[in-house]
């Protein structure tokens, strides 16, 4: 039974990914992206990374998607109507991407074939991840906090459209 669920989730993920690329209305594409992020979180949970699944939903869906939707709402295109766009040229990008995909799949087959087939064992990762973040990855953790601070300040400075009071 759990196998069926995983297949359904993976199929839905692939469908949503295609919709992100192909839907003309940008807001519908954002909804498809939400679907992709949710199914990614579900796959993380299936693989045993439950903390990452919850964080993915909290940070990505609750944060990044809200930023995207705010950006979409604050930038309505005055020359056209409601986010519909037609790039028009889909044939060559699709062809090139398919060839690239086939090459990647070949590389994956080579690298994944070294793994012996084993039953997926899941364990509680929260404690170990916490210890890793203050252990070997402490410097990276502090570095990412500083990057976050600079990113926030930079985004605020850039987004100000020059209104001086």
């Amino acid at each position, binding site marked *: 039974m759990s196998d069926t669920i995983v297949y359904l989730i993976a199929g839905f993920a692939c469908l949503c*990914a*295609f919709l992100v690329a192909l839907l003309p209305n940008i807001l519908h594409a954002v909804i498809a992206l939400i679907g992709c*992020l949710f199914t990614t979180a579900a796959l993380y949970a299936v693989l045993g990374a439950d*903390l990452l699944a919850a964080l993915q939903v909290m*940070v990505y869906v609750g944060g*990044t998607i809200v930023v*995207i939707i705010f950006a979409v709402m604050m930038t309505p295109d005055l020359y056209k109507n409601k986010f519909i766009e037609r790039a028009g040229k889909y044939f060559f990008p699709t062809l090139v991407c398919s060839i690239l995909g086939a090459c990647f799949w070949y590389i*994956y087959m080579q690298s994944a074939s070294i793994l012996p087939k084993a039953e997926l064992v899941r364990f509680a990762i929260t404690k170990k991840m916490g210890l890793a973040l203050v252990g070997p990855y402490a410097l990276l953790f502090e570095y990412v906090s500083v990057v976050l601070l600079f990113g926030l300040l930079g985004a605020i400075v850039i987004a100000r459209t020059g209104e001086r009071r």
Partner: protein
Amino acid sequence: MADNIYLYLFVGLVFFICGLLTMVTRKNAIGMLMGVELVLNAAGLNFVAFQSFMNSANKEQLVDGYVFTLFIIILAAIEAAVAFAIVIRYFASRKTIDTHQGIELRG
């Protein structure tokens, strides 16, 4: 087959290819940035898949792949914020987010 890593690698590959396709074919600036999010998700999925299956294969309990994915999630969020701030600035000077209109260095 859910015990096989190829399912997760395939989903990651589809995410990557579709993200690339989104970046290439959309002319809406926000659409392009959604492609970037998809590509980062694909990378994170690969990390988690490989870490889980290597743990199962070698009977260990390492979390390095998960920590990398955590950093990917965090950095993707902040990168989205900065990118969309730039898009808003672009919009403020040109009144459109059509990237095909951005062919002159002005504003």
